[in-house]
């Protein structure tokens, strides 16, 4: 039985392929010239260059954090290339103008843009390496006044909005990786939903890391104006690579009064091979600021990356604001994840919910790190935290680091935690009914994750479940 589990846990990454698109790459290293180059390439206004440079100077004085429960070889930040863009870069009116090689890559991934466009009614802003290549559904969204475009485009077309909100949730001084991102971010998505508008479709971005040795530093900014609603999907796969690839993204969400933002992620970056060689280093800063009566909800399914360092958080600033965090994190083979959330309660009657499901298999190490902070001003704040771990096999580990800080005695806090193991008995029970060990594992894991999956939009939930099956086919034991 344990051999089945091992086989499952050690499945090769199914999306490992690279495509040959010539990239326009910067020389390795990080200094003011590189930042100026990036900014110039993107034709950015002076204030943005200044902002980047301030971040860079600040970053030079910072130290890489070491508190996370992850271990990796020191990263040489001067050996990384900070810019790369597909060369054939012209304005595209339709998908037909997209590089055929790129189209093939998308097809291999099963995300044909046309299909997406035609079938699912999902507007796709495809980020291929660092530059957005195609954006769809613009016209339809524009009718409602919704802006959904690449970050670079937003800087050109809506500089005032970008300037107003960029860094308003995650300041450039925030942390080592966010500061690095602020200096060198390449591209990402920008989304603005005007007052009172309910975005009629799920907005979706597929990210893909391609050029070897290129760190990718996306920057995403989503602003829901008063009374607006948006559901945003982020999903990714990356080609197989030998060396580690650094990824340090920043996502900022702003939910103004009575607004609601639902942000869902399925992350499947290359996790490294069976010996733990290669794989993506994923150091992400995601945070949302919730104003009066607003709601921000993070749902994530993390199955990829060699190292995941990620804490989607909510600052519940306005009265009656709500923050939610639903997470499934899988670590198989030699993957390490230190992930969780922060809920900072500032406003009165603020509520937060945390549901974290950690799954460890093979030699995977999975840590939940969560902080719930109730400030003095947060009268009648409530938090519910649930933190479950599932172990597959006996070489993996699950760790929980909950931090709770309460400065207002009217707060109500609930915390539940559990650790369980997929037992031989459960597997055998399924097999005895005719279900293969592989399907059984995937079934048991899905059952374990049900509270998170039901928060995902329907198509995404199906995809997430499939992904989980794939990553745990080798990883569930």
């Amino acid at each position, binding site marked *: 039985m344990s051999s089945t589990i091992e086989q499952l846990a050690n499945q090769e990454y199914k999306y490992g392929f690279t495509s040959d698109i010539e990239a326009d790459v910067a020389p390795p290293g990080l200094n003011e010239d590189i930042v100026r180059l990036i900014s110039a390439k993107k034709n950015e206004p002076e204030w943005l260059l200044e902002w980047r440079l301030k971040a860079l100077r600040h970053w030079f004085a910072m130290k890489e954090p070491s508190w996370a429960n992850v271990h990796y070889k020191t990263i040489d930040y001067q050996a990384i290339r900070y810019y790369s863009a597909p060369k054939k870069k012209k304005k595209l009116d339709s998908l037909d103008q997209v590089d055929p090689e790129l189209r093939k890559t998308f097809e291999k991934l099963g995300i044909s843009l046309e299909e997406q466009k035609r079938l699912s009614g999902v507007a796709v802003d495809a980020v291929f390496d660092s530059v957005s290549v195609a954006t769809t559904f613009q016209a339809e969204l524009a009718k409602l006044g919704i802006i959904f475009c690449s970050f670079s485009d937003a800087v050109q077309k809506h500089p005032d909005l970008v300037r107003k909100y960029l860094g308003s949730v995650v300041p450039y001084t925030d942390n080592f990786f966010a500061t690095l991102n602020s200096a060198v971010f390449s591209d990402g998505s920008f989304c603005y939903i005007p007052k009172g508008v309910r975005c009629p479709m799920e907005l979706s971005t597929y990210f893909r890391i391609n050029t070897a040795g290129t760190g990718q530093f996306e920057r995403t900014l989503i602003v829901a104006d008063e009374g607006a609603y948006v559901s945003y999907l982020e999903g990714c796969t990356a080609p197989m690579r030998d060396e580690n690839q650094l990824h340090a993204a920043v996502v900022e969400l702003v939910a103004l009064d009575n607004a609601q933002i639902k942000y869902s992620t399925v992350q499947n970056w290359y996790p490294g091979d069976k010996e733990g060689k290669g794989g993506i280093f994923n150091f992400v800063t995601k945070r949302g600021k919730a104003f009066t009566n607003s709601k921000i909800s993070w749902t994530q399914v993390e199955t990829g990356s060699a190292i995941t360092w990620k804490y989607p958080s909510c600052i519940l600033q306005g009265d009656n604001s709500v923050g939610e965090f639903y997470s499934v994190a899988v670590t198989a083979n030699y993957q390490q994840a230190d992930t969780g959330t922060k809920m900072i309660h500032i406003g009165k009657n603020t509520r937060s919910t945390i549901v974290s499901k950690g799954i460890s298999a093979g030699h995977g190490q999975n840590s939940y790190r969560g902080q719930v902070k109730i400030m003095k001003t947060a009268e009648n704040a409530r938090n519910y935290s649930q933190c479950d771990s599932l172990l597959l096999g006996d070489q993996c580990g699950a760790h929980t680091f909950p931090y709770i800080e309460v400065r207002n005695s009217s707060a109500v806090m609930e915390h539940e935690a559990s650790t369980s193991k997929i037992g031989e008995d459960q597997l055998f029970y399924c097999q005895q*009914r005719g279900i293969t060990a592989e399907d059984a594992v995937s*079934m048991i894991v899905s059952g374990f994750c049900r509270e998170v999956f039901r928060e995902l939009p329907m198509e995404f939930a199906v995809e997430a479940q499939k992904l989980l099956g794939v990553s745990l086919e080798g990883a569930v034991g």
Partner: protein
Amino acid sequence: MLDVKNLHAGIDGKEILHGLNLHIGTGEVHAIMGPNGSGKSTLANVLAGRPRYEVTAGSVTYEGKDLLAMTPEDRARAGVFLAMQYPVEIPGVNNTYFLKAALNAVRKHRGEEELDAMEFLELARQKMKLVDLDESFMNRGVNEGFSGGEKKRNEIFQMAVLDPKLAILDETDSGLDIDALRVVAGGVNNLRSEKHSVLVITHYQRLLKYLVPDYVHVLADGRIVKSGRKELAEELEQKGYEWIEQEVASAR
């Protein structure tokens, strides 16, 4: 249907079955009785292919095939069903979903069309009446929070849906009150036909009042020491297992 020859098997390096022989013909209901530790559950688990149980000698032929060479899921698909003594909970996995996946895996193996959700529900509803389970039960997790009796009835319900050729009941009667016992026996009796064989493993004779076997075997110390017709069960009930043990001892 099933032919067990000179079976030696055990767990964790300890031999529990010391050369067991058993023949079950198509359409027959056999009961195996025996005191605790005689190897009853070992036999059930070895037949179903539970990991950790090792077979050191002997053979098991099922419908002309080497059963021991098959994976647990292949045995199940070929029609071997084990109603477990301790059914496990699978939290969050919906009963309907689980059983539909199982049934379709079995049907696919038999070359039959898979059932869609509506067809499956219709079948499930029909079979649920047999075991007196409420429909709301289909929406709960597999055995999640079930009482002991509900778990056992669920096993019988699954059996009724999967329609196995050889059903093995591993002490399904233990811990059941008399009503639940009747339900379980009813479920098995309903399965009885000239095409279905049943192996009932039990410590007590009481189940056999409702579920009358064609043959009764007494298992002691890893071997079948006495076989007979249904009357043997009554004799056992009156005289107790000591009687058999003494007989076996004196025969040595």
